[in-house]
């Protein structure tokens, strides 16, 4: 396990406070040795009381300090993980520690001096005004300057600790968020520094001067004669001159130290801010520097960090825009070259397109006229189809009537055929009778012939009868032939009638189909007429649109010609390319982080 980089940082931060306390204590002891009147035999009491209070309040102050730097100490010991929250708390503790240390020192110095004076006043043979009260006043006088010195010594370390903690994972923005800048504090602090650095030495000098004056006056007044008094006064003046000079030197030194430390505390972040501003002005925006400070200085540092972040973002976007502009300009250059080379082709194409559009407009007009004619023809077609439909319906009705008549004719012919058959039977019967009569006559003639001369007359009669019979048979035969012919003709008529009926039925079916077809034709003709009307309207609209298109093409052609005449795209591209190059060159003067530049 690697040790925490914050190990021992808390102790290192506290150390100037202790040093300032020890320095203040030493100064108090020196001053006390010069000005305090400690009765003989009471030094051990004074040392014991002062030492006990110093130890007591040192332990007390150490405990308070440790509590105020608890998170920082735990981070240094590894007891807490270096999360953003813990680091932010540590930064907050670091920044707040000088003020808290100042208050602790001030309170402890005041309380300790007061307690020491009261306790020493309780020692026998100690006058409370000469010893106890002066000790308390001395502590109260040295407390502010010691606390101020400790504060000034702690400022540098608290800044260093805050920077070290922030370097573990906090951005300047996060530090600003956990420790927001507080304004109108610097003036109060400067007033306080001036007051302490002026008032404390002045009080001490006044106290020393009054003390020496009182003691000298008492010593001179105690002498009996004037010469001795004069000599004593001169002696005391010579002695007091050196003491006063040493005290003035001490006071001036203290003031200079405080002024130097305070000036350093103020000027150090100012120098860092100035350097950072110069670096930014030089175009180096590679990193946002964390400059820890206090009060208005901290506000200025945070504002500078914000400005640097804003500038970095803006420059990143500007660099990206410049690169895009360069690329776009290059592409524009290519396009412009292509356009320049294709301008003539475009002109030629526009000319052809314009001519084609005009031809299209003329064709559209012709189409519109033809469409109107087609619409009229479609309407006439629909009318003819409706007339044909009516005629066909009439024809179908006639066919139905003819079919009915043919059925009647067929039935009549069938009845006629039946009658003819009956006649044939009668004729056949007559023919049979004739044949029998012929046979009888023949036999009679035969008998008459056989009878000789006697039967001659009989034979003649029989022969005549036979001729009659034969005539009857022959006539009957002719009738049979006629009947056969009639029957054949009747059968042919029946067959013809049946064939006619079938033809009529087929014709009726065809007529019905024709009616249906004509109905469909009428419907289609109506639809066609409607469609042709729609086409005619659309064609008229197309004609209008085509005419407008031809006008627009002529306008485009005119504008293109004017554009070619007024200037080329290449010239604009060259100017834009030069502008983009200048922009990229200017932006490249700023150095920003690579990822931000790529992000832009």
């Amino acid at each position: 396990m690697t040790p925490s980089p914050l190990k021992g940082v808390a102790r290192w931060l506290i150390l100037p406070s202790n040093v300032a306390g020890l320095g203040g204590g030493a100064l108090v002891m020196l001053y006390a040795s010069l000005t305090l009147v400690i009765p003989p035999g009471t030094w051990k009491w004074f040392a014991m009381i002062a030492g006990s209070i110093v130890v007591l309040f040192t332990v007390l102050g150490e405990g308070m300090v440790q509590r105020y730097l608890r998170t920082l100490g735990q981070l240094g010991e590894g007891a807490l993980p270096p999360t953003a929250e813990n680091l932010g708390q540590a930064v907050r503790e670091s920044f707040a520690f000088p003020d808290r240390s100042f208050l602790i020192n001030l309170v402890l110095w005041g309380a300790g001096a007061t307690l020491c004076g009261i306790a020493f006043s309780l020692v026998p043979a100690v006058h409370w005004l000469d010893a106890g009260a002066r000790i308390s006043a001395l502590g109260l006088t040295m407390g502010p300057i010691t606390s101020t010195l400790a504060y000034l010594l702690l400022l540098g370390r608290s800044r260093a600790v805050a920077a070290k903690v922030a370097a573990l994972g906090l951005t300047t923005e996060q530090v600003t968020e956990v420790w927001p800048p507080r304004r109108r504090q610097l003036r109060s602090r400067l007033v306080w520094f001036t007051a302490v650095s002026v008032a404390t030495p002045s009080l001490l000098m006044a106290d020393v001067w009054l003390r020496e004056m009182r003691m000298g006056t008492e010593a001179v007044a105690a002498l009996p004669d004037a010469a001795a008094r004069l000599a004593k006064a001169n002696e005391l003046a010579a002695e007091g001159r050196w003491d006063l000079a040493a005290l003035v030197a001490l006071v001036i030194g203290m003031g200079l130290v405080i002024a130097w430390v305070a000036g350093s505390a103020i000027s150090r972040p100012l120098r860092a801010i100035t350097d950072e501003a110069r670096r930014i002005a030089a175009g180096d925006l590679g990193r946002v520097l964390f400059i820890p400070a206090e009060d208005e200085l901290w506000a200025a540092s945070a504002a500078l960090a914000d400005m640097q972040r804003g500038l970095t973002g803006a420059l990143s976007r500007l660099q990206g825009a410049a690169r895009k502009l360069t690329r776009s300009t290059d592409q524009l250059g290519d396009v412009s070259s292509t356009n320049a080379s294709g301008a003539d082709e475009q002109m030629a194409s526009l000319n052809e397109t314009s001519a084609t559009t005009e031809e299209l407009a003329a064709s559209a007009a012709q189409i519109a006229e033809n469409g109107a004619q087609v619409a009229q023809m479609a309407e006439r077609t629909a009318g003819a189809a409706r007339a044909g439909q009516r005629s066909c319906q009439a024809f179908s009705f006639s066919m139905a009537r003819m079919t009915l008549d043919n059925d009647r004719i067929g039935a009549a012919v069938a009845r006629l055929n039946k009658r003819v058959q009956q006649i044939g039977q009668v004729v056949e019967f007559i023919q049979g009778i004739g044949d029998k009569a012929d046979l009888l006559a023949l036999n009679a003639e035969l008998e008459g012939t056989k009878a000789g001369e006697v039967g001659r007359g009989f034979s003649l009669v029989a022969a005549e009868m036979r001729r009659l019979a034969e005539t009857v048979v022959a006539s009957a035969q002719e009738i049979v032939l006629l009947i056969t012919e009639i029957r054949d003709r009747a059968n042919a008529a029946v067959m013809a009638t049946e064939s006619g009926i079938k033809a009529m039925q087929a014709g009726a079916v065809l007529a019905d189909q024709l009616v249906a077809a004509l109905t469909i034709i009428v419907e289609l003709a109506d639809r066609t007429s409607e469609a042709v009307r729609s086409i005619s309207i659309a064609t008229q609209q197309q004609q209008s649109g085509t005419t407008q298109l031809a006008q627009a093409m002529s306008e485009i052609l005119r504008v293109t010609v004017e554009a070619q005449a007024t200037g080329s795209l290449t010239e604009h591209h060259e100017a834009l390319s030069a502008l983009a190059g200048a922009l990229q060159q200017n932006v490249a003067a700023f150095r920003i982080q690579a990822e931000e530049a790529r992000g832009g």
Partner: protein
Amino acid sequence: MPEAQELSRERPSAMVAGLLLCRAADGYLAFRARDVVQVEAWSSSARSPHARLAFGYSPQQGRALVSADGDAVGVDEVSVFAEPATVLGTPALLERAMGKSIAGFVFARDRLWPLLRLSEFSRFLVAHGGMR
């Protein structure tokens, strides 16, 4: 057979009166009237032969001449010729060839008719496959 014998004995100059002149197909035949007892109708159902067979034709409906013996011959047409006609003689060879059914020839109605004996001719036809 006495009539047949009588015919066979007739001389060429003998006269005959009363003939039945018949036609069968394209052939002509003559019979004595007194040989025919009755004329009947001939039909395919009749059991008498038809004279058309003698001329190589198939029989058809016509008349049947019936003799006193019951023999009959079918012919197509029959007519009575009552006038006397001369009987011409027949060569013996022909007479024998026809089974003695031919008695001679008569001239009537401007045509020469073979005069046949009805019964013999009927039997002749039957003997030569004339029966149906």
